[in-house]
């Protein structure tokens, strides 16, 4: 207990508060939310990648018993609702002209542009009736030529998706100094080039998206329960921008959310559609996506093809880096989709390595595919893949050692703080130490024996590393509000959104630690527009960085008020009062007062000095992050490849992360391991694949492979804690995304190491057995 309070809750592996609810089947997820007399909605989705809607005949469907409402694009047009806006932070082309933003209406109007796009909403008494009604809706489509791959979309003569976007280009982008990069290339001994693919994947939270909308005709107010990670911002968009009902008239709540990973960040059409339906019907309306629809309609992530070039000298010194990326946006801009291949992928170019010059350019075209939006890391996994793959590839081409190459070029601690060539403010860390520690813990001594054992079985073993550097993101502001309730409980409301990360525990742990309160007394609220005024939700590894800082700031303010109350009681100046272990005391006297005493006193004016009002300890404060933090770390990975079948077994995994201060190691490691699993999935099996005609081939869990328990290795996770950042109140750097930033390059590097004797030095993700087998065969054929 002593260390717990002394460290203000930091460092305790507090077990999770939410677990009992989840483990006993009492979690309340969106499909567990039911309103009396609710109707059910389903969405008729486009079977066509690109087509004109000639006509929609709903007469038979509407006549079906139990059908309550059908809404088509024409109906939607007549409502006068606005399209869903995009909020990308990058909004202009290199030449200064505006990003092309096509209108993203909740229902397709006149034309469909991807398979799965909502074409009509059906509301009925039951889901079965919705299904039957959808069968009866006749849509007359006139197919148009379509394009799904970004490289094809920007070619001359490609089908044009939006009139406002000639050549299908939504946006282009540059960052860095091209002249400096060019000079570095000209001066260097070698320039090595590799074209690489960052495959399209999707977040696939185990809980599909869903929402329940209700409307009160008396007050004109709406309530929306939504499996969303971003309650406040999406309320503003839905209420103020799209439906124009005024945000004060929309109460937006997320119940327990079964995973998000970015896939539940954006504003989606369906919740908007059912809000409209609830108003029309004056009745609650529930909509739940099924898994196949999720693949068609949850935003996708990554999907970049890139040409990466590194310039280096004979002695291995890195000189310059040049990346040209084309990022597939899908049919619309997404909520922030166009930021990912542009700004999002640019900032961490070059990782934690020294370069004379780096220059990044990108083109973001539209295609006839589901819109792109953030997926865990959104741009940083791509950036990390660029640098850490090109290093290994260059090492292979030049006969150098990839570990030595990294060792030689890491930015030394004495160079920090510094501004990277990409403008990132890298304040602290010790990259060489983190790297060496990664190598140290990865059991190199036993490696030769394991190689031998693999060879004896006819297998190839490989080892790969990655030194990632990433950055936090998401909303810079967060609110933490504390209310001391009459029943002795303490209500803590924070505007962050846990979709499994454990905020209910860690924020409470911080508050309890700072104030010396018992965990059991804290009641946590999140993801509710009535609980906090503002809220940045979840995204960019911001939960502790911004949310935890807000909790800390509010705690400190409560302590300051408590000191005044104590000073008033003891009749001393407030600056004489100190607070420690949940007690206010005046050193050198026997005056002490517990925080509980202070809380109990706060409602009676007699207990308060003149400048305090009753309820003065109930405080809400907003913390604002100035500059984003820089998590960094090393991943090392061992794989065994069967050259006969191309199957890969990831056999060992080691990580050293610098997340600054570790508040709850158990939760941090949970984030890292989950992130590695998603990175492994992207590297080895996950692929959103559209065929030539724009049909989604990998549209179910039978076709879209997710890592299972026996695909995963044992993982060893360690932390470098000697470089807490001063950019926030906790010294934390953000832990949520790092795992899937580091894993793909580490795994692919290990596989390429295993296959080097065949001359296989690169395979594009996902490294399926078929691709690996073919790569070996082709390499053997060309000798």
């Amino acid at each position, binding site marked *: 207990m002593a260390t717990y309070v002394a460290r203000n809750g930091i460092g305790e592996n507090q*077990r*999770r508060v*939410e*677990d*009992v*609810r*989840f*483990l*006993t*089947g*009492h*979690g*309340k*997820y969106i*499909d*567990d939310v039911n309103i009396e007399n609710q109707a059910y909605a389903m969405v008729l989705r486009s079977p066509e990648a690109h087509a004109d809607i000639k006509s929609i005949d709903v007469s038979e469907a509407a006549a079906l018993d139990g059908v309550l409402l059908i809404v088509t694009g024409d109906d939607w047009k007549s409502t006068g609702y606005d399209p869903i806006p995009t909020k990308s932070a990058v909004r202009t082309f290199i030449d200064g002209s505006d990003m092309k933003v096509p209108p993203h209406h909740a229902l397709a109007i006149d034309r469909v542009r991807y398979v799965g796009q909502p074409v009509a909403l059906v509301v009925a008494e039951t889901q*079965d009736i919705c299904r039957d009604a959808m069968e009866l809706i006749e849509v007359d489509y006139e197919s148009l030529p379509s394009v799904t791959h970004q490289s094809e979309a920007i070619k001359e003569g490609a089908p044009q998706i939006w009139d406002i976007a000639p050549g299908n280009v939504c946006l282009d982008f540059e960052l860095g100094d091209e002249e400096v990069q060019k000079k570095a290339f000209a001066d260097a001994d070698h320039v090595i080039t590799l074209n690489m693919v960052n495959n399209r994947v999707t977040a*696939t*939270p*185990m*809980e*599909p998206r869903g929402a329940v909308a209700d409307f009160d005709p008396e007050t004109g107010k709406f309530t929306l329960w939504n499996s969303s990670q971003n309650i406040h911002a999406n309320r503003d968009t839905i209420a103020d921008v799209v439906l124009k009902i005024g945000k004060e008239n929309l109460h937006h709540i997320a119940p*327990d*959310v*079964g*995973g998000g*990973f970015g896939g539940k960040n954006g504003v989606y059409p369906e919740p908007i559609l059912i809000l409209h339906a609830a108003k029309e019907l004056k009745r609650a309306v529930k909509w739940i996506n*099924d*898994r*196949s629809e999720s693949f068609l309609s949850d935003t996708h992530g990554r999907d970049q093809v890139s040409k990466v070039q590194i310039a280096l000298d004979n002695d291995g010194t890195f000189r310059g880096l040049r990346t040209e990326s084309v990022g597939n946006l899908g049919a619309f801009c997404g909520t922030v989709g166009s930021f990912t291949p542009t700004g999002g992928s640019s900032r961490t170019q070059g990782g934690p390595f020294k370069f004379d010059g780096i220059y990044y350019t990108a083109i973001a075209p539209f295609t006839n595919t589901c819109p792109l939006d953030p997926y865990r890391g959104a741009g940083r996994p791509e950036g990390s893949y660029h640098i850490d793959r090109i290093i290994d590839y260059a090492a292979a081409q030049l006969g150098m050692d990839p570990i030595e190459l990294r060792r030689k070029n890491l930015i030394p601690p004495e160079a920090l703080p510094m501004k990277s060539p990409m403008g990132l403010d890298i304040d602290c860390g010790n990259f060489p130490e983190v790297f060496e520690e990664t190598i140290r813990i990865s059991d190199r001594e036993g490696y030769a024996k394991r190689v031998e054992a693999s060879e004896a079985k006819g297998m190839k073993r490989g080892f790969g590393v990655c030194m990632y550097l990433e950055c936090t993101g998401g909303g810079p502001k967060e609110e933490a509000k504390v209310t001391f309730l009459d029943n002795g409980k303490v209500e803590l409301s924070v505007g962050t959104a846990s*979709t*499994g*990360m*454990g905020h209910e525990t860690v924020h409470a742990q911080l508050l309890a630690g700072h104030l010396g309160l018992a965990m059991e007394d804290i009641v946590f609220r999140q993801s509710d527009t009535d609980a906090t005024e503002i809220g940045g939700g979840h995204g960019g590894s911001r939960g502790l960085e911004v949310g935890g800082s807000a909790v800390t700031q509010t705690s400190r303010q409560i302590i300051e008020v408590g000191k005044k109350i104590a000073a008033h009681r003891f009749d001393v100046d407030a600056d004489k009062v100190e607070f420690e272990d949940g007690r206010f005391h005046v050193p050198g006297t026997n005056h002490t007062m517990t925080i509980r005493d202070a809380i109990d006193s706060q409602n009676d004016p007699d207990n308060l000095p003149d400048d305090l009002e009753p309820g003065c300890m109930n405080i809400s404060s907003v913390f604002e992050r100035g500059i984003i933090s820089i998590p960094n770390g090393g991943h090392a990975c061992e794989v065994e490849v069967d050259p006969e079948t191309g199957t890969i077994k990831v056999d060992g995994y080691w990580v050293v992360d610098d997340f600054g201060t570790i508040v709850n190691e*158990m*939760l941090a*490691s*949970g984030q890292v*391991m*989950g*992130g*590695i*699993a*998603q990175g492994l999935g992207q590297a080895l099996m996950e692929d959103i694949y559209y065929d030539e005609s724009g049909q989604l081939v990998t549209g*179910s*869990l*039978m076709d879209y492979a*997710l*890592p*299972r*328990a*026996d695909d*995963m290795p*044992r*993982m060893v996770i360690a932390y470098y804690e000697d470089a807490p950042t001063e950019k926030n109140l906790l010294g934390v750097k953000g832990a949520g995304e790092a*795992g899937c930033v580091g894993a793909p390059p580490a795994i692919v590097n290990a596989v390429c190491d295993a296959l080097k004797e065949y001359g296989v030095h690169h395979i594009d993700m996902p490294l399926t057995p078929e691709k690996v087998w073919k790569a070996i065969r082709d390499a053997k054929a060309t000798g």
Partner: protein
Amino acid sequence: MPAITVRVNGLEVTKEVGARTLLSTFIREQLKLTGTHVGCDTSQCGACVVTLDGKTVKSCAVFAWEADGADIGTIEGLADGDKMHPMQEAFREHHGLQCGFCTPGMVMTAVSLVENNPDIDEDGIRHGLEGNICRCTGYQNIIDAVKTGAKAMRG
């Protein structure tokens, strides 16, 4: 509509069910036991696992009428009053869950794996959980939880 009679977590209930009603829908909507989750439509994810006469099944892959006369166990019936089952305790101890959506199916499967093989090892656990997808944890803490849970169940 025909009626079925089942014992659910030890209590007998009789209800009418539709010919197309899945066991998962019956449990969630008619019995209001929402701890059984539905994460897919192709019987792949395992979020819906319950026991049927002591054997684990994916309740989305069984029609409700097929369960007539059977004993059904769901996550809600695992704890003994306020005292969680040792497997539930172990999941909490090892941080074997994050969002909790896969968890009921995971725990039901884990209990049954251990009941069938009290000395199950890591490989056996990984293999035995093949039909249960977790997108949050990377599985390691689940494996460790099952090991600890198995030990506690052995007593």
